[in-house]
């Protein structure tokens, strides 16, 4: 599988070749070529900004259709905590979970349950690895992908623990296999996701060899089906006790939730991809003082801000806050090392397949590199500087690149021409037309003189 898979597709018929997406892309991955937006896959980090900004809806998130349920004999829904923030006046998560079963799933396993385990493991990891402070959260796949291509010095700070969804998937699969006796391939572990970045994370995982997630559905696709079913469930009074999570798990749905579960004040939580980049730049330059943890989410508001959600992210966060009010702090623990667990509702987790830690190393991918060696790089950067001097510096986007500098780099890479710049082209045309008129005047002069001769 291609290590630079990404979960954004283009509908060529809808793309008008405007410059909205190229300007918004935080990694400069998009160009307009021949009137259509083209993504350079290795630069894309799946942040979803182009999907959000495209006024023509030509950028499409890539995920699975609901019909994927038919591919498996037994299916388990893994709802993201952000799903709970989508509904008005929801008092009991079990209504959502029961409705998911009525929708066609055989069982549900809350991602927020696994998130509590990740929180617990993170607390321990942070305590034991002070030399790696600040630890950077690795739950947002866009952030991990961004660090992989742009912040090599920060890779060692990444929390090497499975994202809640991946841990949930492994635990859900083990549970399903045990309960049904079915072989693994007949069980479908289906994530109900707020963002398409999770599709890439499943298809080309980082940190783990293979994800246990079989399919990724969009919250926005599931939402309209759940609404009538939730009404039915509530009216019937047959609400199943399916929820396994507490406050800490549910809070992961919004910014600050993950950090909140660490029970320390020594953290910062940033959201929105541009803000995330700023924090990472400052972190790399050691401009940020000692902190234990840095939570980063590519979307504004955290996962509730994902492009596959329905509700305004800020409203969704309020709803989650309301929902968790009377919930226990946490209900999931990795094992019983810390003494007997008295709360009857606490779920003990043991897995034979994972200890919750990453198994694969994350390697720096210098995708933005110019030149194969230092000599060539110096020559190329010098040429970029020289071109930037000549370009007008308007960053108008007419050439199909987001900035003059980006065009200069494209020219140096050999994928664009200087004359793609309409200002350079205009100068060129002026020069040609001057030459033509000079030639024309010259011809007139010749005619004139020949006329004289005839006289």
């Amino acid at each position, binding site marked *: 599988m291609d290590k630079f898979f990404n979960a954004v597709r283009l509908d060529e018929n809808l793309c008008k070749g405007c410059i909205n997406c190229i300007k918004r892309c935080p990694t400069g991955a998009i160009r307009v070529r021949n009137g259509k937006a083209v993504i350079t896959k290795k630069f894309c980090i799946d942040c979803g900004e182009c999907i959000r900004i495209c006024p023509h809806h030509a950028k499409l998130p890539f995920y699975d259709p609901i019909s994927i349920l038919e591919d498996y004999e037994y299916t388990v829904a893994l709802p993201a905590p952000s799903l709970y923030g989508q509904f008005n006046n929801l008092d009991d998560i079990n209504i959502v979970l029961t409705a998911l079963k009525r929708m066609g799933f055989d069982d549900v396993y809350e991602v927020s349950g696994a998130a509590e385990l990740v929180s617990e493991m993170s607390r321990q990891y942070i305590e034991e690895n002070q030399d790696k402070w600040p630890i950077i959260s690795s739950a947002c796949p866009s952030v991990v992908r961004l660090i992989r291509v*742009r912040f*090599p*010095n920060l890779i060692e700070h990444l929390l090497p623990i499975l994202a809640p969804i991946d841990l949930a998937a492994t635990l859900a699969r083990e549970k399903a296999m045990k309960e049904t006796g079915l072989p693994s391939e007949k069980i479908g572990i289906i994530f109900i996701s707020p963002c398409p970045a999770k599709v890439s994370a499943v298809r080309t995982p980082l940190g783990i060899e293979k994800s246990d997630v079989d399919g990724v559905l969009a919250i926005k696709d599931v939402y309209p089906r759940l609404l009538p079913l939730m009404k039915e469930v509530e009216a019937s009074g047959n609400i199943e006790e399916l929820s396994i999570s507490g406050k800490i798990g549910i809070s992961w749905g919004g910014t600050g939730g993950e950090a909140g579960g660490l029970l320390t004040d020594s953290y910062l939580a940033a959201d929105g991809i541009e803000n995330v980049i700023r924090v990472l*730049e400052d972190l*790399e*330059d*050691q*401009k940020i003082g000692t902190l234990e943890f840095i939570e980063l989410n590519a979307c504004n508001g955290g996962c509730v801000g994902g492009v596959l959600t329905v509700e305004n992210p800020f409203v969704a966060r309020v709803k989650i806050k309301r929902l968790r009010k009377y919930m226990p702090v946490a209900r999931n623990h990795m094992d019983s090392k810390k003494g007997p667990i008295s709360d009857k509702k606490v779920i003990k987790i043991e897995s034979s397949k994972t200890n919750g830690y990453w198994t694969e190393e994350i390697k*720096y991918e*210098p995708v*933005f*590199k*110019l*030149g194969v*060696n*230092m*000599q060539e*790089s*110096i*020559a190329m*950067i*010098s040429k970029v*500087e020289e071109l930037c001097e000549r370009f007008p510096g308007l960053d108008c986007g007419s050439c199909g690149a987001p900035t003059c500098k980006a065009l200069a*780099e494209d020219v140096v890479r050999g994928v664009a021409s200087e004359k793609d710049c309409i200002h350079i082209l205009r100068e060129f045309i002026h020069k040609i037309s001057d030459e033509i008129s000079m030639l024309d005047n010259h011809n007139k002069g010749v005619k004139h003189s020949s006329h004289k001769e005839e006289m």
Partner: protein
Amino acid sequence: MSDQIELTYQVSADDFTRAGEASSDVKSKLKKMGVNPEIVRKVAISMYEGEINMVIHADGGTIKVIISPTEITMILEDHGPGIEDIEKAMQAGYSTAPDNIRSLGFGAGMGLPNMKKYSDEMKIETKLGVGTKVTMKVFIR
């Protein structure tokens, strides 16, 4: 084809919002050149500290950066007050930054020590009332 690239940056005085622009630009260029990340980090940190020093102490100045295949040279030149006691200035925690600067979280007295720590070679030429020139080198190999 020249085998080195020379970059010049003007650092403006008292503008903390822009401090760090020059080192960020150099950092991004070095990354694009595929320079070892650890070396990029050394350059970015030592240059940023120098840049901040120029903003705090010296009414700004000029930074010249020369990148060759074997080394990165940073020449920071200002027409500030000069450094009275280099030995003291090199001590960790020693600072002459005024209180208003300290209240911004700068002036912790780690500027010059960090510049020395993260560069492979550092030379300071200073004259009271005339200015300071700091030359730092980070070797690539």
